[in-house]
């Protein structure tokens, strides 16, 4: 591999950064560019709940110090949104009309939180938690002992829920089929897990659908929720936690095969010679299950980043289908998701 290589990575998450690290190890002379829509360097989103009980800012969440990028000559192009990829010419276009040429492209653009169409109209009244800025917003508007209503409750939400409860806030969980996502919960386990949530201090509302979400009257709680069964509740913040959708719109028209995510074989190469994918954005072929499927969680995506980087630099290693990580209740009767641990 020569110094003329320009590795471009779309995505500044675990997968992209792990890949960048390995690319630099294996091809010291090359150019490495990470492109991200966000404005920050790679930070640990998993630790965002710390914002509720610590005086900290984004610098405390940085995975690598600033010098790491200088020392390793990794150019992180922040605030740059990829609009499309031209696989034939090996270039991609940024929203600000700059063209970037790559020798090899790794798509690690992750997923965006999922919001079903029927909730779309209430989007301005909902608060996300997938970014540092959205987390700060929640922290800033949530009064002491304030009330958070969570819609759905994927593992990310449940992680936040247990943190909020232990910090003295009230959490109300409105269940949907995405509750516990991406864990596959058997019907017989479900009641058990719901019970564990209630034990944790979370108020759980089951079997209802959202009818309306409104801005609360002045002087009252900020949000007013009406259910289809006529019940109404008030909250300071309403947050959807309904799982993730792969963020790869910009790959449309690139000629690369696409289902819900980018389709890759077990070496993480897409149907284009020079384009690879890793992380939440890709669906990997599983010979055992005879289908393309997603694997979430930092451990998985980190491994993907490593495999992609190594294969991009001449190795031939393969993703091995991992067994699903199960939600469980530990000996202290605590609900535990393996996703909640991270390094």
């Amino acid at each position, binding site marked *: 591999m020569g110094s003329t290589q320009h590795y471009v990575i779309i995505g500044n998450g675990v997968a992209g950064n792990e890949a960048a690290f390995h690319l630099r190890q294996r091809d010291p002379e090359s150019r490495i560019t990470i492109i991200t829509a966000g*404005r*920050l*360097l790679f930070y640990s989103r998993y630790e965002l709940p710390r914002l509720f009980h610590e005086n900290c*800012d*984004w*610098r405390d969440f940085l995975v690598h110090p*600033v010098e*790491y*990028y*200088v020392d390793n000559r990794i*150019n*992180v*192009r*922040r*605030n*740059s949104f990829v609009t499309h990829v031209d696989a034939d010419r090996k270039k991609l*276009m*940024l*929203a*600000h*009309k*700059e*063209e*970037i*040429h790559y020798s090899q492209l790794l798509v690690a653009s992750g997923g965006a939180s999922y919001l079903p169409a029927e909730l779309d109209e209430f989007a301005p009244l909902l608060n996300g938690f997938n970014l*540092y*800025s959205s987390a*700060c*917003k929640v922290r800033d508007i949530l009064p002491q002992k304030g009330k958070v209503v969570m819609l759905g409750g994927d593992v990310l939400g449940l992680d936040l829920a247990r943190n909020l409860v232990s910090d003295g806030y009230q959490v109300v969980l409105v269940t949907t089929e995405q509750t516990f996502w991406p864990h596959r919960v058997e019907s017989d386990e479900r009641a058990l897990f719901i019970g564990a949530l209630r034990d944790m201090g979370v108020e759980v509302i089951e079997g209802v659908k959202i009818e309306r979400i409104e801005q609360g009257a002045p002087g009252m709680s900020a949000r007013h929720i009406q259910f289809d069964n006529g019940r109404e509740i008030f909250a300071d913040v309403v947050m959807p936690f309904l799982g993730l959708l792969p963020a790869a719109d910009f790959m449309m028209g690139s000629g690369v095969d696409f289902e819900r995510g980018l389709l890759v074989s077990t070496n993480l190469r897409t149907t284009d010679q020079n384009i690879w994918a890793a992380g939440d954005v890709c669906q990997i072929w599983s010979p055992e299950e005879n289908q393309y499927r997603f694997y979430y969680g930092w451990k998985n995506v980190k491994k993907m980043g490593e495999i992609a980087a190594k294969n991009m630099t001449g190795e031939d290693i393969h993703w091995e289908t991992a067994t699903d990580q199960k939600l469980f209740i530990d000996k202290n009767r605590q609900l535990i998701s393996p996703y909640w641990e991270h390094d």
Partner: protein
Amino acid sequence: MKETDIQLMFCGSAGDGTIAVGDIFKRAMAKAGYKVIAFDIYPPEIRGFGKCISRVRVTSRQAYSLKQESDLLVSLNDSYAIPHVPEVRDFGSVIYDNAPITSMAEGEHISGHLLPGQLPYGLRIREISDQTTGGSKSKNIVALGYLAGLLGIKQEPFHQIIGDKFRHKGSAISESNLLAFDTAYAEGASTFRLDFIELGAPERQEIGSKVQMMTGNAAVVRGCLDAGLDCFFGYPITPATSIMERLATELPRRGGRLLQTEDEISAIAATIGAGYAGVRAATATSGPGLALMVEMLGLGVIGEVPAVIFCSQRGGPSTGMPTKTEQSDLHLAVYGGAGDAQRIVLAPTNVEGAYRCAGKAFEMAEKYQTPVIVLLDLYLSNRYETVLLPRQNPFEADSVKHRSNVERGVPYKRFAFTDDSVSPRTIPGEEGGIHVITGLEHNELGRPNDQSDMHTRMSEKRHKKLLAALDHPGITIHKRFGDQGRVDVGILGWGSTVGEILEAMLMAQAEGISCSVMKVVMLSPLPNEPIRSFFDDCAEVLIPELNYEGQFANLVASAVSKPFTRLNRVPGVPMQVADILEQIRRLAGRAKSSNAA
């Protein structure tokens, strides 16, 4: 109360309104009650769209100099701004247009050049300008609105300044620009802040004085006008031209007269002529012009004619670097010309000082009957500072204009020997005081006389009378800052570099180094005694200045016998604070080890 100390940098081309937006920003901040120091850099070429940079430091208490690093960079032209990205500190931010009109190759957009610790703030700058004003001319106002919203600065002062700025262009333009500002302001205010650029509340204003923001040259003009300047003669030369330009507007309003002469020789000649005729007269120039003036300066010295010469230094020798700053005309100002021709030379160190020195120069010129040179430099001439101007005019008017002493029937002794070596003086038109001034050595009557003892006595008279200027009231001749008493490191400075020196001193003190600064404003006659006692107090002395030869150091060397360290730089830009600090550290180390020995 939280202290404010932020520095912004606007970078773009001459056509982008870069300097204009920097100007609105600093005026608005000054209006809001902050202290400002700012310095613009223009392209050397007049035509075209060369690079412009406007740097503005906003503080709660007046800062001494600009900072090496800026907290925020606004790019109005990426190709110009990209080389300046490294000047933005870690966790500082860069504001730029992220919706340009044409596509570009990799590397042409500034977002690709940010260092890892810097924060990008992209905005549809051109689009917003188009939408609100129907053109892209107001990109600068959009960027300004965005940054004001982002930093959460009140809109009020901006509205006023923008309104003032565009008023003469008609209300439609003024309103569309306000709309551009407000639209971008809202964008900024709703943008999630990630930087750590914090603005505290401004300091209260002192009573009995009014805060204004102006450049060194504008301060010179104010000083001239407050001192009652009657006549001005000048020949355009960067960076002094703006003094004449401003006076061309202001002076006639007060009944004064200004003439653009055919060259600097004529300018100083007319100044001397007007001074001889009894009015307050001045000229302004830069090194090349001063070089032409020194012969006439000598005539002013021997003829004992009051005159004020402002000289704003630029890079030399010869035509040198006309748009770069330097302090290399000190020898010329102090020594230039034929013979023993001592004159008064004042070098203000900041904008407020420029005002005081300008006004006091007229008092001194009249009181001691001599030409007075006020030595500035491009950096001081062009930089903006908020200054506290006294509400009461601090300058003495006509009272010291002349001291006639006429006795009937006796030839008038224009150059009479007196106790203070200053002779009585009449001006043309005065009865009984007829005399002829000459550049020849002369006797008390002004008649040519080259006898050796006459020349000796007259030389002594001309030098002795100037010593009184060292105690002239109402002006700082020299001043000591920082640690008092014995210190490890003393820094002796003059002119605009004193700003950087003081910043370096504060940093060194914060590091625990015992150090002290002495600024010398009067370079001729030199306050020898205070300089000597400063040397006595300092284990090590450093003299930083923006010239290659160490011209001030040479002056000092003739006054003290102790060794000292020179720091000479000729980068064409202000001296780096870090450079001075490094020397202070080194000397502090040396002082420590010799203390221990």
